[in-house]
Structures are given as structure tokens and as C-alpha cells.
């Protein structure tokens, strides 16, 4: 691929299964320009796709290798039995379960032919994890928050016991913390056509699991972020991710931005 283009989709809230199916379709079509023609008839090249979305109702998404039965025995969810009545969906990416409530989800899809961001064929892309997370840290620090990368790991699997069920109880070195609270974690999936990176950004506490604080609970933010609608954070996170990708690939050849305020629009 010569010159890299970026498609940004600011999506409307959708049910969990639909959200996951859209990301899977975007991933499997990552190298197929004709797929993007559905979004823009003039489009004729693969692109890095950034999608920002949230969920039409509180929903659990489970990591690729997790089962819903683990929720019955997990220690970290014992005090909040209400989680068991929530709808749930399986992610294709790794890591632990996410409670999608008072949070924003993003996906970044990188086609396998992207020369500016070579992926190899196995394992994670540390560059993509770091670029997105460092950009978010930079933006939060500009708000005056004590934001940083975790630089620690709870990767205890196989070394003394299972990891917590919920992703936000876990730590990997690139997770984003404000103080000691994790507010952003990401995970990835590889296929022949490319790489999908999912991430979850906590905006504020969820009544379903109030142990996790969101960025709005952790400092004095500008008024529009403190009390504004989720779309304010959607725009902010979109800008941080866009900046991260530009940092990786340089100026994009072309940018297409789609704002989908209506979930009846199919992707």
C-alpha cells in the first residue's frame, strides 16, 4: 500500500452483538477496498479504520478465551451479582471481560499490507498499543490529571493463579492509569487481512460495578468534559487516536470521516 488513508467512524450506540459483528466485518474486509465503497463510492484503496462507539445498554464483553461460566466463580465479581443479569457478548480480541457502561469503546483496524505499520503475522503490535495509549496519556496530562502508563503487570496466569475476570482489575505495562485507577485498556486480534485493536475508556463510575472510577471521577476537568454528553468524549478520544496513528504512519494520504448518529445505518 502506498500512502495510507484513514477512515474514522463516529458511530451511534448499538447492541453488543452488533458492535462486535461490525468490528469483525471491518477486520475481515481490511484489505478489500470494495468493502469501503459501501461507505464511500469513490473509495478505491485499503485504509486504517478507526471506529468510536458505545453501547445501547450496559453489556459485558468477554475476552476471546473467557466463558460466561467464569463469572459464576470469579472472585472480583462476587459482590456485584447484578452483572450476571446483563447481556453479554464474546469479543474476538484477548484479555479480560469489560463492562460497557459509562465508557467508550474504540476499534482500530490496520490492513496487513500497511507498509507504514508492518504487522508481521503473529502476536501483538506493541507500537499500536503504545501509540494510542501514550496519546491518551498526553491528552489527560494536558487536563492536569495524574495520567501515566501502568508499567506493571498482573500477568499471573500460569504463575500462581488465574487473572481477575474483569479487565480493569488487571494490569499490563501499557494500560493507562489516572492515579492508581486504570481508565484505558486495549487488546488485539490478528487475522490474514490485518489487525484489530479494541480499547475501553472509562468515563465515569457504573452503578453496575462502582469499584471502577472513570476519568470524570478522578480530577477537575473542563466543564464540557465534566458534565457533557458522551459525544464530547467521543470527539476527544477520536482526536487522540487519530493523532497516535499519524504519529505512526505520518500524514495520511486521505481522510474520510463518517458520523453515524443513527444506529439504523448499517456498516
Amino acid at each position, binding site marked *: 500500500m502506498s500512502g495510507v488513508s484513514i477512515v474514522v467512524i463516529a458511530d451511534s450506540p448499538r447492541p453488543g452483538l452488533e458492535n462486535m459483528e461490525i468490528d469483525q466485518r471491518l477486520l475481515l474486509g481490511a484489505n478489500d477496498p470494495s468493502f469501503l465503497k459501501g461507505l464511500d463510492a469513490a473509495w478505491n484503496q485499503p485504509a486504517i479504520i478507526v471506529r468510536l462507539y458505545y453501547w445501547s445498554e450496559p453489556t459485558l464483553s468477554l475476552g476471546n*478465551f473467557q466463558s460466561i461460566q467464569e463469572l459464576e466463580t470469579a472472585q472480583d465479581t462476587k459482590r456485584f451479582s447484578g452483572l450476571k443479569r446483563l447481556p453479554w457478548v464474546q469479543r474476538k480480541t*484477548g484479555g479480560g471481560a469489560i463492562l460497557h457502561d459509562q465508557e467508550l469503546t474504540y476499534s482500530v483496524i490496520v490492513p496487513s499490507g500497511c507498509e507504514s505499520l508492518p504487522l508481521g503475522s503473529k502476536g501483538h503490535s506493541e507500537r499500536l498499543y503504545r501509540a494510542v495509549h501514550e496519546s491518551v496519556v498526553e491528552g489527560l496530562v494536558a487536563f492536569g490529571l495524574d495520567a501515566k502508563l501502568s508499567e506493571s503487570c498482573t500477568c499471573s496466569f500460569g504463575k500462581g493463579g488465574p487473572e481477575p475476570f474483569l479487565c480493569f482489575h488487571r494490569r499490563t505495562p501499557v494500560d493507562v492509569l489516572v492515579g492508581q485507577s486504570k481508565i484505558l485498556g486495549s487488546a488485539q486480534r490478528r487475522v490474514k487481512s490485518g489487525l484489530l485493536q479494541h480499547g475501553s475508556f472509562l468515563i465515569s463510575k457504573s452503578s453496575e460495578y462502582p469499584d471502577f472510577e472513570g476519568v470524570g471521577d478522578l480530577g477537575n476537568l473542563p466543564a464540557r468534559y465534566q458534565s457533557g454528553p458522551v459525544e464530547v468524549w467521543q470527539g476527544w478520544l477520536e482526536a487522540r487516536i487519530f493523532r497516535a496513528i499519524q504519529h505512526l504512519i505520518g500524514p495520511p494520504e486521505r481522510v474520510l470521516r463518517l458520523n453515524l448518529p443513527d444506529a439504523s445505518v448499517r456498516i
Partner: protein
Amino acid sequence: MTLSPENLKYLPSHEWVYAPQDGSGVATIGISAFAVAELNDLVYMALPKVGQTLEAGQEFGEVESVKAVSPMYSPISGQIVQVHDGIVDRLESLNSDAYAGGWLIKVKISDPSQLDGLLDYQAYQKLLAQHG
């Protein structure tokens, strides 16, 4: 011919296959030491069931490391006759032996000519050198 890295054929996606000339027609498949090192800290692996039929290039399993899920591809077509189920509970052993002790599945080969299209050890080493 023994199951050692020099005697294997490879896919560019780092799966290996060992096809002994013993008349059995059964090949052994795994992922290379380079792949294990690249994956870094394997936490989960899913393997297929005995009896499943695979096409060359088809996914036969998945592995998770550093919150990234990666597929594993079959270098050849055939039917799975044995699965190394025990390996999923001791993935750390792949760090020290990704070959003889780290095999993942055994497949009854349906088209031996596919082996000719795979990378030999020298070609695979050249590919790894290009990766830097």
C-alpha cells in the same frame, strides 16, 4: 530424519510441519521457536478436535499472548489424527522446546505435493533475517 528445526518445512506465518518418510503419511505440525518468542508470554491456546479436516492455509487453532489473539495455520491439507491437548496447560514449555516436545497436531496428509511449496529451513532462516 528426526524432528529437528533443520528437517522441517515452514509457512511464512511461522508454522512448521514434519513429514517423515516412514510410509505413515502422517505429518506433525507446530509453531516455530521464533513465533513463540514473538508471541511472548503465551496464556491461552485453543486446538482443534481429532477427525477435523483441514485445508492448507486454514486456521487450526488460536493462541493468546499480551492480550492479542493470533491464529495458527495448517501448512498442509489432511485429517487431524492426534492433538497434543496437554500442551495447552503448560504453554511455558514451548519456550524451551517448540519442536519435538512442542508439537500441536498430527495430520494424515491428503496431498503430499503441498510440501514442495513450503519453505525449507534455509529459506525460513532467510525470511527471519529479513524480519531483522
